[in-house]
Each structure stands twice: as structure tokens, then as C-alpha cells.
């Protein structure tokens, strides 16, 4: 029982950075912008957050600065793609490569330093439920924040006027522009939100998962987050589930190995990625549903007419 509890808790920790990044990217993509720079924004957030926490000793400040750094990277992307109309795919890739290099260089001084990990905040009563309580309700604040953000973003996109406008911009920016909605501004705001969350996702790595800075510590998690967005059909709540699923498979495969289950380790290492591919293939099989959810103008540059 204790083991199951520990496994669930580990899954949530492994999934939370992915959840943050994926939820943010859902909102950004809903506005019709494809930002492939998630990995880059995460690593920038990780380093900026780490440096802040290391210098000030305050994880909370670290989270804020991480979000600001992610936002800055996202707005740089936004400036290039929305104002200068650069190709989104190429710019996103460039952003990731640039951020990985920049953080490796700028992070040299912090390499090998350690920060105090984020302390868990058990929720009263709920955390006392046997097994499930400690597994689900005795986490750090960011775990709860990820859940809250997923619900809030879902509600925002579905049920608010601003959400509707954002989606309209993602579906048909020309029409939205014709009615008088500020396409570029809305997209920049969506990007900024995505960048902030990616930054927090990156910060989570050193705040909880492994409390030190090493270059390239995101190790491809940004790309997984991008896959989760498609997997989730551009719905924030499902992005959260997708993150938990991916985190689950990657943690469970480690436990299966420790149990000595007789499957080659390489297959187990593949498992999380295979699961992602399989689910993606299953989902995209259903064309109409896919089309309904994917923003129609995703990745297309918007030329403002007058």
C-alpha cells in the first residue's frame, strides 16, 4: 500500500512540469500560434528560477522569475512571428536551440549548486485519507496550481467571452480582425501565458524533482508537452490527464524494472513514448473530431489588412 502511494506521488511529480507546459501551450495554440519553443522556454525558466532561488533563498520568488523568463522568451517568439511575421515552425525551433545554448552558457556559474527543495503543503483532512490522501493531497503548491490552472484555462476557453474571442482568432484571424478584435495583441497575450507556464514547468524540475541546476536538465520534456497538446485535443483538462498518463508510464516502467519484471529495459524505456504515439495515432484517426478541436489557423501567419 505504501508503495502504491509512493508510486502515485512520484507520478504526479514527474507529470507536473509536463502539465504546466502543455496547458500553457494549449492556450497559445488555441490562438492559432504554433510555438515549438516550449523546451526552450522551460529551460530558460529553470535557469532564471534557479538563479533567483539560489541567490534569494526564496522558491516563491524563483517561480515568479521563472514565469517572467518564460514569458520573455515567448514574447521574443511573438515579436518575431506576429510582428515580423517570421515562420512559426522555424522560429520555434530556433528559440529552443537558442535557449538551450544560452542557458548552458549563462548557467555555468550555477552548475552543480543546489537549492532547498519546495516544501509540500498537505491539504488538511483530505491528506489524511488512507493511501490516496498522502499520494494525492500532500504535494507542493505547484501541483495544486497545475490542476487549478487546467480547470481555469478550460473554463476560460469554453465559457468566457474572452475565451471565445481567442478561439475565434485561432479559427479565423481575418474574420476576427474584420470584426475588430485585436488579433496580434490577443495572440501575444496567449503566447505570454504559455511562456509563463512553460517557465514554471521548467522551474518545477529543480524545485521538486532534482534540486540543482544542470544544463539541458529539461531533457526533451518540452517536446513531450507539445505531443500532449495534440493528444489532449487542445483541451486543458485533457492536457493535464495526458501529462499524468505520460508521467505514469515513465515512472511505472522504472518500478517494473526494480521489481525485476522480465522485460528488456529498452522496451520499458520506450514505453512512455510508445504510449504517446499510440494515443496520438488513435486520436488523429478520427479526422472530424481532430478538425473540430484543432485551431484552423494554427501555424499560419496572419497578415493584417489595414
Amino acid at each position, binding site marked *: 500500500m505504501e*508503495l502504491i502511494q*509512493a*508510486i502515485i506521488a*512520484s507520478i504526479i511529480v*514527474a507529470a507536473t512540469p509536463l502539465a504546466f507546459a502543455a496547458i500553457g501551450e494549449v492556450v497559445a495554440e488555441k490562438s492559432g500560434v504554433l510555438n515549438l519553443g516550449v523546451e526552450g522556454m522551460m529551460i530558460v525558466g529553470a535557469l532564471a528560477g534557479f538563479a533567483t532561488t539560489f541567490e534569494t533563498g526564496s522558491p516563491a520568488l524563483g517561480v515568479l522569475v521563472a514565469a517572467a523568463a518564460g514569458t520573455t522568451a515567448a514574447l521574443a517568439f511573438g515579436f518575431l512571428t506576429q510582428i515580423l511575421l517570421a515562420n512559426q515552425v522555424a522560429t520555434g525551433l530556433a528559440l529552443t*536551440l*537558442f535557449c*538551450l*545554448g*544560452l542557458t*548552458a*552558457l549563462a*548557467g*555555468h556559474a550555477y*552548475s*552543480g549548486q*543546489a537549492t532547498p*527543495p519546495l516544501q509540500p503543503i498537505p491539504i488538511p483532512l483530505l491528506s489524511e485519507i488512507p493511501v490516496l490522501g498522502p499520494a494525492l493531497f500532500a504535494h507542493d503548491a505547484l501541483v495544486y496550481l497545475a490542476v487549478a490552472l487546467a480547470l481555469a484555462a478550460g473554463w476560460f476557453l469554453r465559457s468566457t467571452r474572452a475565451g471565445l474571442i481567442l478561439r475565434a482568432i485561432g479559427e479565423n484571424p481575418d474574420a476576427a480582425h474584420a470584426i475588430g478584435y485585436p488579433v496580434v495583441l490577443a495572440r501575444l497575450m496567449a503566447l505570454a501565458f504559455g511562456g509563463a507556464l512553460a517557465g514554471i514547468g521548467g522551474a518545477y*524540475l529543480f524545485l521538486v*524533482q*532534482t*534540486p*540543482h541546476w*544542470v*544544463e*539541458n*536538465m529539461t*531533457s526533451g*520534456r518540452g517536446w513531450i508537452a507539445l505531443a500532449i497538446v495534440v493528444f489532449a485535443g487542445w483541451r486543458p483538462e485533457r492536457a493535464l490527464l495526458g501529462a499524468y498518463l505520460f508521467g505514469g508510464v*515513465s*515512472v511505472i516502467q*522504472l*518500478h517494473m*524494472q*526494480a*521489481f*525485476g519484471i*522480465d*522485460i*528488456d*529495459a*529498452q522496451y*520499458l*524505456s520506450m514505453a512512455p513514448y510508445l504510449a504517446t504515439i499510440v494515443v496520438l495515432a488513435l486520436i488523429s484517426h478520427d479526422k472530424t473530431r481532430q478538425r473540430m478541436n484543432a485551431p484552423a489557423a494554427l501555424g499560419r501567419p496572419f497578415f493584417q489588412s489595414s
Partner: protein
Amino acid sequence: MQRKALKLAALGLAAALIGGPALADGKTKVGFVYVGPVGDHGWSYEHDQSRLAVEAEFGDKVETTYVEKVSEGPDAERVIQQLARSGHDLIFTTSFGFMNPTLKVAKQFPKVKFEHATGFKRAPNLATYSARFYEGRTVIGLIAGKMTKTNTVGYIASFPIPEVVRGINAAYLAAKSVNPDVKFKVIWVSTWFDPGKEADAAKALIDQGADVLMQHTDSPAAMQVAEERGIYAFGQASDMKRFGPNAQLTSIVDNWAPYYIARVKAVMDGTWESTDTWDGIKPGMVGIAPLSDKLPADVKALAQQAIDDIVAGTRHSFTGPINKQDGSPWLKAGETASDGDLASMNFYVEGVEGALPK
């Protein structure tokens, strides 16, 4: 990646300016290729420390270049070629996966000297070198066997190559010799360096009852998890005490400096030959970090005795009788494993649980 690209561009430019291998300025140019970032605080870090030792030793008579984070694939060949082309006299490639690319480039540049770490393919201008880390594993295995209360030792392994398998076997045999009930749980993470994944593996092992951790991956993530959870762990490649002041019992520390200095000297003197070096604790290539104060006196004495015996040559990590995992005999009583057997080890010894990935 970006950094590497910049460096490579710089290398290319240097090649164009210098115009091929030449010792025009009398400097010996030495190149290093690392698999991880120099800031990994483990494997690549120690290689880079030794590169700096080479610079300190020879001053302005040498010029060193390093390329870090080179993936073990087609990229490696390009990087090694670039170094060879830009006038390096001696190139160290420091990961098992660089073996074939190094061999290929060595054939293309017969005048350049190459050294490949932990591999087994040699050529007239390609030497190999490695350290007998398994000797260190024997020492930490003894300590682990004594220190585990749950009789479960967790082992985070990278890839099932002989080097890693040898380490698991050596540590297990040593632990078993002092604690017949000890069990090893091994997790293969299929990476040398992914702090998040290494930390997850460490947590999984602890959750399944391990109270002592060993690792054969390059980051200090597992050490930090051990510190946080209040259990013991052993550092890898480098002294990781600052990541786990209470957790670290000791570390196996790589020290390539004497070897690198000797080999660079040989190139300068024109005495370089393709050799196969495999040094252990005795010549100092494998170091053992100071033993933790947490160790009881008898365990400290046991570890020290083992170190002394290995140095004196009276203890070999693989001394029969040893059976393979499937129960078939491997070494007869008193027989020690040959270097050939060790270099190609692809089986678990009897008692290790789980299947070795192929």
C-alpha cells in the same frame, strides 16, 4: 547544441586559417570529445578536470580544445573529424559509444594520434584506455553490504555494456561476501545523463525498499534524492559529497590526469605508441573519496583493507568460485577472471536478479 555548433564553426575557421595539421607554433594540440556537459559533475567533468591538468602541466607548450555534449552517433564522427582536420595532434574520445566513429576517423587521419576511453578497438594510431572501476565497485559493494538494513541495494544503471555490467557484478559479489541476504535491484535508465530520470529511478528504488544507492550514470541527482530521503548512496566518477553531505558514504573518483599528461608527453617526445591501458586503484586512475564518518569503525577498516589488498595485488574483484546467473560455472575456486573475460562481460553473476537487457 547551439554552443556546439558555434564551437564547430570556430574550429572550421581555425582549420581554414591554419591550413591543415602543422606544428608551426611548436604547440602540441590536444582535442577532447565529451559525451556529457563538462558541468555534469561526474564523468565528463572529471575528464575536463584532467584536461585542465594537462594545460597546467605543459603551459603554453600545449593547446587544448574540447567539444562537450557530443551524442554517440553520426555527430561524433563529424566532431572527431573536425578536430583531426583542424590540426590536433592527439585526440581523446571519452565515451564507449565513440568507438566506431573514432576508429573510422583514425583510419582517415593516419598522422593524428587517437585515444578512445573504455573501448576495445585499436589501430596503429588509435590507443585505448580505461580504468578498472570495478575495483572501486568492490570497495563500495563491501560497504553497501554492511550498511544496508533492508538488505536491498538500489543500482541505477545506464546501458548494458560490459563496463556497466562488470560494475554491477563486482559490487554484488562484494556485498554478498559480507551479507549473504543482500539483494540488488537494478534499474536501467538508458541514458548517461538525464537528472530528472535519474532522480525518478532513485525514488523508485527507495520506494521499493532500497536503503543504499549506487549509480552508473553521470549526474548527482540520485545522491540528492538519497540525501532528501535520509538514506545512503555512493557518488559516481566524482566526489559528490556536497550534493549529499549525509548520504554519501564514499565515491569512486576518476583521475585521468596522470594518464593524459603521460600521453601528451609521449606525443611531444615522439614516443607515442598505440597501447591498451587499463589501470585501477593502484596507479591512482581509480580513486576512493574519503570514507564517510557515518561508517562504523569496522566497516571503515573492512573497506580500507580491501583497498590495501587491491593495491597489493592480493585481492581480485572476480575470484572464483563464481557461477553465471543461470548457474553455469564461470570461474573455478581460486581462479581470477582474465582481462579478456572482463572486457567482454555480458552476463550477470549468480544471485543478481532480473534479466540483463540485450
